């Protein structure tokens, strides 16, 4: 299972990167990056996964005493939560930038914004 999740996550990352680097439409670049971000999240969660164990929540079924035999690693999940929110922040920022760029040139083609160079 973990391998499947890992592979899926990596495929999403690679697909996202490819899309972000080949699509010249700025909005589509951002879409591609969100896909890559999702892929990263899947990879992160997959790394914490341990077959046959439950979510890291202690309750009647999982008392503290046996917790370390029953639950999966909670750390990657905590990291992913942070990563998701940060990803949203960056996506929102890029979108706002996209709007500003569009206002600047009435175009969303990244190759039109090259006056800074050399």
């Amino acid at each position, binding site marked *: 299972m973990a391998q499947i999740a890992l592979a899926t996550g990596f495929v999403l990352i690679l697909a996202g*990167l490819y899309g972000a680097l080949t699509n010249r439409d700025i909005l589509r670049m951002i879409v591609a990056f969100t896909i890559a971000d999702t892929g990263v999240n899947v990879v992160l969660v997959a790394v914490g996964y341990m077959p046959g164990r439950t979510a890291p929540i202690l309750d009647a079924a999982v008392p503290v005493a046996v917790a370390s035999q029953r639950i999966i690693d909670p750390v*990657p999940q905590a990291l992913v939560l942070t990563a998701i929110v940060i990803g949203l922040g*960056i996506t929102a*920022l890029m979108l706002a930038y996209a709007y500003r760029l569009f206002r*600047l040139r009435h175009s969303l083609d*990244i190759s039109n914004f*090259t006056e*800074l*160079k*050399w």
Partner: protein
Amino acid sequence: MVSPVLIIAIGLGTAFALGLLGSTRKTLLFGVTLAALAAMATISLIWLVALATGATETAEIHTAGVAPPFAINLRVGIAEAALLATVTLTGLLAALSLRAQLLTLGRGGMAVLLVLVMAISGLVMTRDLFNIFVFIELVAIATAGLVLLSEDTRAVCAGFKFLVVSQIIAILLLVGIIFTYHANGSLNIDDIGATPVAAQGAALAMFLLLIALVIELKPFPANGWALDIYTSAHPGFSAIFSAATGSAALFVVDKVVAPAGAEWLPLLTGIGLLSFVGSNVVALRQDNDRRLLGYSSVGQLGLVLAVIGQRDVLGDAYLYVAGGLVLSHAVAKAGLFWMSAILRGRKLQDWAAIRARAPMVLAFATFIAMLVGLPPFPGFYAKWDLAQALVAAGRLPVLGLILLGVLIEAAYLFRWFGFAIKREAPESGLSANMVDCGITFAAVAGGWALGWIWGAIPGQHNVLATLPVLAVVAFIALEPLPAKLKNVLAIAALLGWFALVYGDYDPMRLIFAVVMIPGGAVILLASFSETGRRIGFYPSAMAMYAGLALLLEANTFFEFFAAWEVMTLGSYFLILRGRMSEPHALSYMLFSLGGAFALLAGFALASGGVQPFALDQLGTVTAELAPWVFVLLAIGFMTKTAAMGLHIWLPGAHAEAETDVSPMVSGILLKAGLFGLFVMLMQLGRQSLWGVDLTVVLAWIGAISAFLGAVLSIFQEDAKRLLAYSSISQMGYALFGVALMNHLGWLLAMMFVINHYVYKSMLFLAVGGVYKRTHTKLMYQMGGLITLMPFTFVSVLVGIIAMSGVPPLSGFGGRWIFYNAIMDADLRLPLILIFMAGPIGFLYLFRLIHTIFLGQLKDPHRQLKEAPFWLVLPQMIFAAFLIAFAVLPGMALQRVDGYIGSIFGDQPLIWQGRAITSEFGYWNPVAIMVVIAVVFVAVFLILIAKNHDAQKVKQFNIVFSAERPYRPETTHFAWNFFAPYRKAMGILETPVVTSFWGGVTDGVNGAAEFTRRFYTGNGQTYAAHVLLFVVAVYLIAMGGVA
């Protein structure tokens, strides 16, 4: 002690709380923001001082009340505290620099700035991998926000490109972090380092982590995105981006690479070096100031990354070296960005506007010297220690590339400085106000303070604490005084110093000291002819003299090298003062730095990293290394004596310098190279490499310099250029003498030290006086000045007699010793060259007197007066000295002769009364003087007797008989005077060396032009570059590491 967590809490809390203050009271908001930044800076400084003085230990701060690795922890040690102070102070000053934008935009902008400074501080302190990621993202987002504060709409594009790359970095970083966690079971950096890992994929995870952090450092060539930010963002922000963010990112790499292990260091070294050299090459073709600073920033980050790669060999010196480079970079770059806020124009030439403000020039010079690593700034100490460690570890190629990079960086920075000093200043190019200037000078003060601190660290020799350098600082402070008063003080300072030290010197050093220190004071007499305040002259001149004074004082390699660099810097500023000297000063600086780097490498090779290493231990170098040390040092010293091949800087630099500067740089400065050669040869003696005796090579170079210098000299039309080429020739003689490695050869060289100083200074002053009156240096525009400027004529006459080596003046003494010396030696072939240089020398010297003083007086010159008194006075002193020295050479030479005898263990000269006897003959100066005087008086009387036969001719009675000449100079009989010889010797005039160095310059510039096409401006292409970079490094690294 307040907890450093408060830096984070204050930054964040204030950013959040700004919203509670309402959005209308912007001044209040700004005040609160500044107060918060000031509080953060204060906490950092308190910790810095406490840690530096040993009042407290490195602090480990736990959050959540749990020890690491289970909760995030922070650390504040000396390195962290220094960086925190840099970051917070930069933030505070940047807030002031950005005040107009922040006040317009209100609390949003201020909150973003606060969060940025907080996040960079957090990045410095945290010891947790994922926490690093969070702070990096915060920094990235805040950067994208603050970029928008620029009035430049292109900043929007730059910000977007930056965000795209940030996304890629985030992805790589997260994947790297999670797999590192998987392999180690911990996110704590120290914990990861403490547990050995065998898990599969750990190396790859570490690679992804490191490469993501390295891309944060904008490595060349995957850095187009960052350069656009430098170009378009508000300079107040760029200062943070370069100084604070860059330094923190470096520190993060340093933190992570510690647990990653030493096998990653070569990779970092490689990336760092590529980035350093590559960025600097591309920067050569920049003409936008901020983009140039961007390339320089990126290059500096690369340099420090390469230094991080050397942490395994730097040992205890690691923090000192890396810290010195980082802090120099941070302070200088922030200062330059803030300065660029004051400048209206964006072209490098527009910086000429600062010329009107001396403090601005001082600031600019300070920053450039810091970046290039010149004394007394920390980069200089760092460079020295780095070189020692690298050579000791056998990493010469690394050292070579670093020095190459520094040289290229120096090329564009000093070219820029030249623009600022020499180009035409744009109308109202400055928008100076109190705050921006204040910020800039805060950086200047920081730079000098750092220089002091780096020198004051135990075990170091504090360049700033030496008396001569303090005198230079004093002269900077004395700038508002009138020039005449400063001149009195300068002469007093030189003589005072000489009185203080002369008792300690051996006879040889004493000769040099007399030439350099009181000799300098005599030349300074000529400076009384200047009026006004002469801003910039005295600090520069005193820096040169300070360097020379310290050179003679130096006991260790470090002291010698520091003195050498101080001297170089001072003389560069002096030379740059000349009216047309911009390109020449630059080439002087570059050759000097190149030579200095050869010295640096040579010293490091000799000491093998042992410090301090005394100069007189040079002889203890192992036989294996000695020839290489010899070669490096000889190259370094010969750049200063302008030996043929390394000479092309000299003619322009000497000829275009000011009237009283030319004799200083020619008569005095060239001797520093000779002094170095003496010191070196005294210790190392003869060395041979691949069966070739290196002293013979030197002798050949000396002979060729003597010959070709003379040949080139005879074809000059510019009187000062003629003298400059003659200096090359004269130094060639001296070099030849030194390289003979026998008693008489050295005595000859010592004789040249004295003679060349006297007559070259005299001739330069004389020609300078003529220039002052005629406003031309071209000889064919002059003539017949003998009646109008008789004193000057006398000094030129005395000068050329002395120089050409005919009796009775001291030049003949030189020749006499010289012929004795070569009879002793077994070098027959170079002898021929040297012999031929003699008569050729006579040809150009003849022109000097014939064309300027004899012949017809030109119409525009009829009303001329004698040169100013203060120019004539030192000439007369020199003339008197020459005559005295000719009669009594023993007064100076006898002691030196004895001293040299004690080195070589022989005594070929016998000093008897007025006569000197060698095995080949004897020389009685007094007798010769009497004979010559009698002959001269006799001929003179005959001439006077026959004077009535002479006929006066109107000046233009034949020349204008036909049509008007197309090129007026061709009508002067002295133009192209030696055209007939050109047919024979023209081939020697082919500018082979100039073409060679020109080719090198063109090649580097071409490479720069080619490389910068790489930066297409397309954000997507930049992102592709980043990916390409990652993949390329991956392929290389997996070959080497995994």
